[in-house]
């Protein structure tokens, strides 16, 4: 990405609210005028969840929502870091580095933004929804989870639900639901924006190709720094110019044709 558009800052920012919004899924609200001013959908922040060496490294979180000078992070508790962040209290200061990475491309010829979120991949979709609505894009949202108690559809519009266990909506994966929809409907000039587990992204990219729809993917990588220094998060490039891109600085948002997913 062009260096001139980076606005990376490290700051201690206060927690202003926090809630368990679904089964094991938390939203932590932070106040930061810098982040809300410069962040774009698809970007992430790298957070020091504790104060000491356990855990040592920061944890990346995509920005879920921005409103005024507060931003929301949505995540599920998967380990020590997320457990510590989820237990922060109002007024606690959190060490945040960001905004980081390349955002979604919001502008373009497309008329319908097809948002696809699998599991906690749905996290950046509310922020993306806000910006798409500002651009008067039509929205179609496909939301999938293992079960109905893990669905987080707040702040999303035109939502098509699927669950792996069939407890709500379409019984099957979010990609199968999208496939079903596309076989029955023809959205006007669509472009797909997908976030979720790698396997889901791979299936989304294949479906997008088969349907002739442009597709952007939000990837995850094991990273230490989030700024292109540690070289920890390679993803294979499709163009062969060099072998790898880095998820943290060349992504996390990639056009599906630019990367080869594992």
């Amino acid at each position: 990405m062009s260096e001139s558009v980076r606005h990376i800052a490290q700051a201690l920012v206060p927690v202003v609210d926090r809630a368990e919004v679904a089964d094991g899924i938390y939203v932590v609200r932070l106040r930061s005028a810098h982040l809300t001013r410069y962040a774009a959908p698809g970007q992430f922040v790298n957070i020091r969840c504790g104060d000491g060496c356990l855990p040592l490294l920061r944890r990346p979180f995509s920005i879920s929502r921005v409103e005024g000078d507060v931003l929301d992070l949505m995540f599920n508790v998967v380990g020590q870091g997320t457990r510590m962040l989820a237990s922060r209290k109002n007024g606690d200061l959190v060490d945040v580095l960001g905004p980081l990475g390349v955002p979604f491309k919001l502008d373009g010829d497309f008329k319908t933004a097809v948002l696809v979120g699998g599991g906690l991949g749905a996290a950046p979709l509310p922020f993306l929804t806000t910006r798409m609505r500002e651009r008067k894009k039509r929205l179609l949202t496909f939301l999938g989870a293992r079960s109905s108690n893990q669905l987080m559809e707040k702040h999303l519009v035109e939502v098509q639900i699927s669950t792996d266990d069939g407890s709500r909506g379409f019984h099957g994966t979010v990609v199968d639901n999208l496939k079903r929809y596309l076989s029955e409907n023809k959205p006007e000039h669509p472009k797909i924006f997908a976030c979720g587990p790698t396997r889901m992204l791979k299936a989304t990219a294949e479906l997008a190709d088969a349907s002739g729809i442009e597709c952007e993917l939000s990837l995850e990588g094991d990273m230490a720094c989030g700024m292109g220094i540690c070289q920890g998060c390679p993803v294979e490039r499709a163009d062969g110019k060099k072998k790898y891109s880095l998820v943290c600085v060349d992504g996390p948002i990639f056009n599906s044709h630019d990367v080869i997913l594992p």
Partner: protein
Amino acid sequence: MKESFALRGVEFKNRVLVASGTFGYGDELKDVVDVNALGGICTKSLSWKPRDGNPPRRIVETPSGMLNSIGLANIGVHSFIQNKLPYLRTLDTVIIANIAASSVQEYCDVLTLLEGEEGVDGYEINVSCPNVREGGLNFGTNREMTQEITSRLRALTQRPLIIKLTPNVTHISEFARAAEDAGADAVSVINTLIGLAVDIYTRKPKLSTITGGLSGPAIKPVALAKVFEVAKAVKIPILGIGGIMTAEDAVEFLLAGASAVQVGTASFIDPAASMKVAAGLKAFGEKQGLADIGELVGAMESTAKVSILQSWL
């Protein structure tokens, strides 16, 4: 209080550098931190040709540390000269080019090319990367090879020549002596320790290369012991590396015998960590009433004449 120190006539404004591989080529963080506050920058390891590095997964977090297996991913020395060096020349800090290679000739070729360039103040030779099949650790765990590489490179340059040593040997001091005998100006102690992490559900190693290099606060006591061992064995300065997160950590390294320190993994967590260490080291020295921060070097006082470790050497 005097903060600076010199190596073969090259003056470092303070005794805090950033370690190779943990600060990119020095230009990535220019809009985030003030690199001129550093004594020096050790660049990402440079090889003759660009290297892709290892496939993912390259990083695993471990208690108070991390395992990495980057595999010397770098843009190659030619691209470094063309795309990175012009910016580095504008900086008011010492630039140490770190060199990695898979043959003695490659070390010589990379160094020779850099010899023709202004703005490279010295060299740090990586004979200790645990994550590549050829070169790297093969050289650093073989005393004769360490000596040969050092003397071959010594003949090619009058700039400071630093050999970065691996702790993955029985007695690191013997390798420090080999480097000193062959004309090195300093040794960097230590590179990462070989480590392994296993996924108990897939029963596979977490890293693509099975093992990787352990760094971070977890290795600090090991690094301090190695610095102490080397300090007893050689007269050339030691650049202490290993889990330095704070100025207090840096003071420990100086007391154990390091003339300067390199901050590594800490930069991943806090890009300004090294600048904070430099400022904190100055504040510590002033508070202690020192005229020169160098008074701390090797100033550890111990009642025992020799450590148990030394008695075995």
